[in-house]
């Protein structure tokens, strides 16, 4: 019962109905993640890893159990409320970047704030600062198509930070990138974590998971192993 727990899952179950077959994707997961930690979730396909990510990202609701995000039970909120939670407390980074094509870099970064009713003109400086943070201060008016994959992912990271979220959920953020660019992206995550951001990263690559403080291995809808990595010396030191 750590008061600092950003994520607390209590007996989370998730059951899908696939035709006549009932699939139990999660079978009573209990988990706590402290503020400021860097957690990797690993597991083979079918382990419940993706379901976990969807639940943690408030994109899905558990069949049973409670999910406390920043102390508040979000497992029973209605669609509007859960959307607000996503928009205000979570930051997403996807494998395929998922930027919106017709928007520029700065506009893409601004999207979560747009849905909070905040005008771009009033938050322009904030968005610009984040673009500079990920090294794209000179590309504010570029479209996603004019950017490389690594650059697009940087925009996505900036976008995930714009609402100052409780945690950043990253789903295979380096999956579409070459190893060098992937390194650069992971370095940004390291830096963010050093600055105190909570990061939950879903991956199946071992070397990516090694960057995390803690690796949660999923298997058959349950947490199989929960390993605490010794914190390695930071790369940029």
């Amino acid at each position, binding site marked *: 019962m750590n008061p600092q727990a950003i994520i607390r899952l209590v007996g989370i179950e998730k059951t899908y109905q696939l035709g006549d077959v009932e699939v139990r994707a999660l079978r009573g997961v209990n988990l706590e993640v402290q503020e400021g930690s860097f957690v990797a979730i690993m597991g083979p396909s079918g382990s419940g890893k993706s379901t976990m990510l969807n639940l943690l990202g408030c994109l899905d609701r558990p069949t049973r159990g409670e999910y406390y995000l920043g102390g508040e039970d979000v497992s029973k909120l209605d669609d509007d409320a859960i959307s607000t939670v996503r928009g205000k407390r979570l930051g997403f980074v996807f494998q395929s970047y998922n930027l919106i094509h*017709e928007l520029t870099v700065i506009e893409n970064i601004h999207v979560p704030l747009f849905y*909070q009713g905040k005008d771009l003109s009033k938050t322009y400086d904030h968005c610009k600062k984040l673009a500079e943070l990920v090294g794209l201060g000179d590309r504010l008016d570029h479209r996603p198509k004019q950017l490389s994959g690594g650059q697009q992912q940087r925009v996505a990271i900036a976008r995930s930070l714009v609402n100052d979220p409780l945690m950043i959920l990253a789903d295979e953020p380096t999956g579409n990138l070459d190893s060098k660019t992937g390194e650069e992206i992971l370095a940004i995550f390291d830096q963010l974590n050093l600055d105190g951001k909570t990061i939950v990263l879903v991956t199946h690559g071992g070397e990516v998971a090694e960057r995390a403080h803690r690796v949660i291995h999923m298997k058959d809808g349950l947490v199989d192993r929960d390993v605490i990595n010794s914190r390695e010396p930071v790369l940029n030191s």
Partner: protein
Amino acid sequence: MNLKIPARHLRTIQLGVKSLMLHKMRSVLTMLGIIFGVCSVIAMLAIGEGASYEAQQAIKKLGSANIIIRSVKPPEGNKSGTSMRSSVIEYGLTYADAGRLKTTLPGVRRVLPIRIMVENIRFNRIALQGQIIGTHPLYMEMSGLSLASGRFLTDTDETHQKNVCVLTASFADRLFPYQEPLGESVRVEADYYRVVGLVRETSTMQKRPQSGGPNEGQALDNNLYIPLSTARARFGETLFKRSPGSFSAEKVELHQITVQMTDTDAVESAVPQIETLLTRFHDKKDYEMIVPLQLLRQAEQTKRIFNIVLGSIAAISLIVGGIGIMNIMLATVTERTREIGVRRALGAKKKDIITQFLVETVVLSVGGGLIGVIIGVIVPFIVEATAGMKTIITFSSLVLSFGISGLIGVIFGLYPASRAADLDPIEALRHE
């Protein structure tokens, strides 16, 4: 907070326009349905309105309180001498009819008898065929003539059977190319008539030859007005018609009697009374009655039907346009499923997604409506200039068609938008 909302919606509209601009060709093609729909509604209503306005004006000129009775040559029976080389057919309205109508019909205000003869009218060496209209001074007022110069016929002319005449101004121009017509005399047969005035016809309807009438096929406004008493004295009652191989004569006292009632309410009841009155003294049906009020009602009825037909066509074309928009929006929703998932993940509520897509549809339909209104306003002008038809663009047709196009956007946009909003964010994010 109150100030934020409009700014945000402005942004949504801006974004909608932006994403439509990404597919310019598609957006324009989608809008075409609405453009044509709106444009045709406005243009057709304008043309219809113009046509019915002209008809109504013409009928109103006849006077809505008037009942016009015309002499009609009855269908020729066996007794009429088709086998004979010559015969005199007697038919039509009489002076007695006019007198009876005036004295016995309740609610009658004025009765105007008219005789019409087609003759050559000469001045110096110019001879033109025209209608000689023998009538009372009342004619000018009741037929909507306006005086161009001089004076019209007077009661004195009538009582003294004066040989005076009034010409239509355009006829006078042809007959007197070099002289001032006033004071000159024109010759008809052997008699001379002094020109005392010129008139202008204000109604277009009266210029048209009455089909089957004595002036059929004539120049439209070669009219010469003389006192009725003069006409009776100079021309007699029998009119001769010569045609190759045959010769016929007709005896007609009056060609037309215009009965003016005190008000339009009296017209309806007067019609059957006139009918009864006339049948008593006419063996054959040798007259016809024209009731401008009834014509007006018919014209209004026709216009109503016309509007309903137009409305249906317009509604259909707008619905087709709307379906086109819906079709494209459904395709767009599928195409942008991933984007919807992303937006949902980033905090968009269902209603935000609905708004986004609804705005796009409304922008399409209102944009199309706007273009349609512009073209719809231009087309009647072209029609008026090229086809010479009168068109009237009513403000209500603009508002109506524009409003409907916006409404179509909302109606046909709701389904695609709600489909977009109801997408499962997880599924949407996974969509390729």
